[in-house]
């Protein structure tokens, strides 16, 4: 089992894409042990320039800050299985949880 997965979700206020992404991620993480990850949600519209300078250009953007290497996923996280694979959470959660999340998304 890997160390704690650190996630950061960059959103632009309550825009439709941002909202969808937030709901999708919440659903994906529903079956994951809370101790296995930490999630920070950033509303970039409060300081958009800072986000740009950090390399976040579009929203929504989900970044796996840890463990290395950094993984960046842009979009509404529609492909839930792929997202879980990329974040390295699928193994931690188990196939059943991932299967359960597949039909989600807009």
């Amino acid at each position, binding site marked *: 089992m890997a160390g704690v997965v650190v996630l950061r979700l*960059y959103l*632009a*206020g309550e*825009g439709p*894409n941002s909202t*969808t*992404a937030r709901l*999708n991620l919440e659903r994906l993480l529903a079956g994951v042990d809370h101790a296995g990850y930490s999630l920070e949600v950033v509303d*970039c*519209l409060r300081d*958009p*320039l800072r*986000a*740009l300078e950090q*390399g*976040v*250009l*579009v*929203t*929504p*953007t989900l970044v796996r800050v840890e463990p290395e*290497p*950094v*993984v*960046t*996923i*842009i*979009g*509404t*996280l*529609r*492909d839930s299985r*792929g*997202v879980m694979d*990329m974040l390295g959470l699928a193994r931690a959660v188990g196939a059943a949880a991932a299967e359960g999340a597949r039909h989600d*998304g*807009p």
Partner: protein
Amino acid sequence: MTRATTDTEGAGSQEGAGETVRKAATGIPGIDAITRGGFPEARTTLILGGPGAGKTVLALESMVNAARLNHEPGIFVAFEESSRQIIANAATFGWDLPSLEREKLFFLDARVSPMTIQSGDFDITLMLAGLEVKAREMGARRIVLDGLDVLLALLDDPVRERQEVYRLHDWLQKSGLTAVITGKATDVDRHGAERYAFMQFMVDAVILLHHRMVDRVSLRGLRVAKYRGTGFDEGEFPMVISPTGIQVATFGPAILGHDVSTERVSTGIPRLDNMLDGGYYRGSSVLVSGAPGVAKTTLAASFARATCAQGERMLFVSFDEAATQLVRNLQSVGIDLAPFVSAGLLRIHAVRSESRSAEDHLIELQRIIREFEPRGLVLDPISALGKTGGEIAAVHSSLRLLDYARALGITALSTSLMSQGANVEATSMEISTIADTWIHLAYSIHGGERNRTLTVVKSRGMRHSNQVRELILSDAGVTLADVFTAGGEVLVGTARWEYERSVRERAERERLEREHRRRVAEQNVARLEAQIAGLRAELEAQRSEMEVVGAHELNVAERRQDGQEALRRLRFGANDAPRTPGS
């Protein structure tokens, strides 16, 4: 889309009359000329082109110029290259971005990492919000979005892409920034099928950049496909990315209505000046055609020397012959250009024709002409332009260059390879139609030798001799000799010389004959005079004789009288003495 476009475009043809669109200069002379002022201010311009067509350089240069020359701050959003890369590239053009960056320019590195995974839709709301903050903070007037397509392609959905472009467009309109969006389009002429089709309707101006390889030479071209509310020069203009930035070849400053000069400039050959009724017209175009080695360069150099001798600047473009070689070769025919070179009146621009495309040459030469401001121009040979990059490009470039010179009042002499009977090159053909004066040099082969002849094929607007002259090169320079016609044939070289000699001989013979006859007559006169003198002497002698004889007879008669007297006295005595016999 507003139809007012067409109306104002019509008015635009009258040099800006009735133009409503305010322009933001690009600071790139050719582009500002074609667009009559630059990009539409506070509007969006779309620059489309294939890879390496120069989109980024064009967008960046216009922004750098605005910052440098007009102190307009600008934002550059780089979707394709890292901003560090762009700054490094800019340094090769001599643009010091780091110093500008501190106050006037802001580069946003907007590359999407190749490690990024896309899953579902996203939008650029955040980016626009960030740019808005930055624009306000720095008082930006310009923005470049370079390679937006790279980001949009990630959406992988034409409808979503269009949505984001509309979002961007709305934001740009509200921002009041003069915007440039660049985008890749592999075949810019068939852009209709591409993602920019709808974008072209949306933006106010569309500039297409072409980049193609012809004969292994890269050719770039720029065309304004659309410019709402203003007139612009249509057609594709040659473009190069030079060491100092983008250069676009245009027509001269004023395409039409250039002053027609009646002033003459010397051809450098007095007898040719006479043939042309005073020389070339200032600002006219002269074509000197002929086979290789027929002294085209020499004729051009005579003109160059004559121009410099008047204290006027002359640009001598020598294709494929080095300047030193040119000067040395001309010295052998008595034309010394070296003093003019050192005096700064003559600039010899020697260049290998194959090194660039015709259009590159054109742009380079236009730049030199702008800098050097010559009154005379020699292109030797202009046909070298056709060596690479295709005939069409060569013809266009040549015509454009000559047009440019004409508009600036520069007298341009082009030499061109053209042999009688052989295939006439397209370049020569085209140039000969626009040339005001066309001089053809040829070899005349007669009696087993070649000699050079000169014919004025045409000379617009001036009286000119239609006679063929022989061109004679010697270490004393170039001279023209009369040619003789005998039996319908022009006599040159030895034939001319022989003819001249026979004429001379006949004259000499006649002279000798006259001399002889004169001497004979003199002798006769002398002889007759001598005879006359002899006769006269004889006559004198006879006269003398006559006198002598006469005198003797008188004496005899006197003596006889004396004797009779004495006898009478003796016969009659003293008494009868006073009586005279006969009384």
